[in-house]
């Protein structure tokens, strides 16, 4: 959780000051109702703010997800902020398993591994060994990208944060989050401190976070780089991470705010995706088998993030830039621009956005392994998320304020639609048998979200 300079909600401080001046009668409560006539603005008086959203995500021919999120926060105006949030997401559809398309049909076992209810099937390793396993299977037709068609996952996450004032110019914040899926559990905690300088024009903040995850794949975590057909599993795994963030926020002028963040984090442990495999191909390009992926057991990332917000009377724009680099040799550049246009009555807005992203591949990323190389592998992964690609997002959000209708300031209803597309570059030339097959299909997805704040 990052500390942001908050606009002054002075009411609580004012009530406290009035109490000191007037004695306890300063806060005895009030009730007033308006009847007759009409006023241009009317306000309400409740401390808790509710933000909620329901997002629907759909990847072309692959995953769909529904994600409701609810967040409540309370600002007591004297610098203390409390926030609770709940996220649920449900994914289903087809998920690529990392293997390449082939000219022949391919059969894979569902991640549930061995199961008594499925018919036995014979799997052949890349070196010619065979094993017989009873597990639900799925087949991929020739030329198709292998995907697990019955992928499903449900996740529930609960988080909270608490910001308290330390002194007039300093505040501290603590937060935590727990995320639960049937095959993954994550616990994270963070703490930060922020100090204002320069008549609150400059804010310096420093935060640390710590995360520990239990990876409990169905059927057990596969032995990395082992042959897929052997189904060698080694139980449950874990990974841990810790990070630091140094932030500087600066008011440039009346209409312009800048934020610069430097962060570093390091994760160690089981960093593999337990469900991803790599196709092993012979010199002609035919698939002879598959290996489970193997990633290093440590990853250190550094990033620089710069955000600028500029306001005009009826519009505002936010431009954010991020550069990330890590010790897997992945470098990424991100640039996102959001522009908000308010309507004349300041009660509705349109917000188009565009995001440009580019990442280089991890040094052990490889879409396939040649059978010659498979015996002396250090690290390898065919996970598309570690590859070299450009991604572009276009989005539009529309919202209208519900202050008058609901008699509650800050109420808003919004709808947002985004289109996201990934395109690979640096594609390796395809070996003979794989010519004509789309080995780098990329990704196209839309996100539709409705939101409600109260």
């Amino acid at each position: 959780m990052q500390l942001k300079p908050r606009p002054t909600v002075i009411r609580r401080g004012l009530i406290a000051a009035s109490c000191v001046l007037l004695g306890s009668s300063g806060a005895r409560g009030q009730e007033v109702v308006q009847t007759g006539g009409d006023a241009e603005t009317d306000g309400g008086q409740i401390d808790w703010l509710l933000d909620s959203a329901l997002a629907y995500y759909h990847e072309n021919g692959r995953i769909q997800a529904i994600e409701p999120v609810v967040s409540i926060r309370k600002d007591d105006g004297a610098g203390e902020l409390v926030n609770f949030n709940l996220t649920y997401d449900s994914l289903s559809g087809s998920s690529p398993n990392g293997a390449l398309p082939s000219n022949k049909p391919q059969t894979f076992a569902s991640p549930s591994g061995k199961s008594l209810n499925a018919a036995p099937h014979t799997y052949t390793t890349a070196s010619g060994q065979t094993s017989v396993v009873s597990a639900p299977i799925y087949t991929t037709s020739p030329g198709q990208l292998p995907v697990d068609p019955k992928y499903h996952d449900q996740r529930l996450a609960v988080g909270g944060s608490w910001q308290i004032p330390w002194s007039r110019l300093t505040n501290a914040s603590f937060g935590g989050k727990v995320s639960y899926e049937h095959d993954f559990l994550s616990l994270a905690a963070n703490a930060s401190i922020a100090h204002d300088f320069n008549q609150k024009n400059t804010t310096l903040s420093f935060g640390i976070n710590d995360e520990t995850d239990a990876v409990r794949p169905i059927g057990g975590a596969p032995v990395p780089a082992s042959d897929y057909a052997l189904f060698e599993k080694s139980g449950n795994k874990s990974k841990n991470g810790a990070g630091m963030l140094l932030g500087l926020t600066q008011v440039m002028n009346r209409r312009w705010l800048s934020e610069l963040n430097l962060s570093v984090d390091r994760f160690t442990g089981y960093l593999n995706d337990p469900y991803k495999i790599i196709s092993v191909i012979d010199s002609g390009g035919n698939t002879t088998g598959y290996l489970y992926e193997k990633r290093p057991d440590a990853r250190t990332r550094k990033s620089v993030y710069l955000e600028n917000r500029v306001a005009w009377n009826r519009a505002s724009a936010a431009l954010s830039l991020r550069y990330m680099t890590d010790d897997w040799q992945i470098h990424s550049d991100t640039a996102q621009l959001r522009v908000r246009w308010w309507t004349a009555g300041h009660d509705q807005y349109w917000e188009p956005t565009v995001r440009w992203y580019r990442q280089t591949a991890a040094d052990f990323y490889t879409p396939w392994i040649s059978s010659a190389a498979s015996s002396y592998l250090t690290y390898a992964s065919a996970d598309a998320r570690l590859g070299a690609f450009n991604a572009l997002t276009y989005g539009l959000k529309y919202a209208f304020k519900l202050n008058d209708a609901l008699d509650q300031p800050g109420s808003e209803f919004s709808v947002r639609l985004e289109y996201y597309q990934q395109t690979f570059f640096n594609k390796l030339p395809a070996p003979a048998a794989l010519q004509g097959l789309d080995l780098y299909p990329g990704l196209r997805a839309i996100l539709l979200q409705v939101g409600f704040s109260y």
Partner: protein
Amino acid sequence: MTFSAMASPCELLLPATDQADAWELGMIVAREAWRVEQKYSRYRDDSVVAWIHRTRGKEVEVDAETGSLLNFARQCYELSDGMFDVTSGKLRQVWRFDGSNRIPEPLAVKRLLQYVGFDKVQWRPPHLMLPAGMEIDFGGLGKEYAVDRAFDLLAERRSAPFLINFGGDLRANQPPPHGPWQVGIERPDTDRDAAMVLELERGALATSGDSRRFLIKDGVRYGHILDPYTGWPVVNAPRSVTVAASSCTEAGLLSTLALLHGIHAEAFLDMQRVRHWIFR
């Protein structure tokens, strides 16, 4: 029961009370209003404020009530990031809002700004040092404070419903037996006859406005709310702001701050999440 104080018509509403009691309670309220006026009015030579001005930069010890008002003024100065400033009254020397077209020279305004700024005041309770040339003006708080003081005095003596109204800044302890208090808010500068009517059960309402005192020159209207930083009137201030809160002082401060926010008055009050009514 009505009387006049602080250049405003004041009244005390006491439903279902007999004459003698009403007179006695009315006198308590009136005396408190006159006491606060006499003590803190900038127009009176015998006020504490005039006495402070005569000290010309020397350190003085103030009484407990003045001390608590100065504490409150400082709190409000800090909470509002300097927007609410009891030393900004000095600017009256060049701004006289009589409806004429006599706006001051920019240089004259600039010269006065060196005498404005609560951060220049040394207030270490109970000792106050007001630099020579500076002024303290409780006018922005005075009426609302008087309402709250009178309210407390009455509340000690009477648990039956009552409403105190000093020229539009009012507070009630509970609704009268026949239903809520009906409060009319005048709509400035419009040709609509009906005032907006609010039903108040308990609590305070304060109204700040820009419609009565102003200057007009070359077609531009200069309202009387002055920005303490520039010394010039706030641009695009609403004509009238009414805020509802638990105490009159709190409501009054929020309505004054809303005016100082000019065009962003609505956004400011929305963020404070108080019931408010703005007319432009």
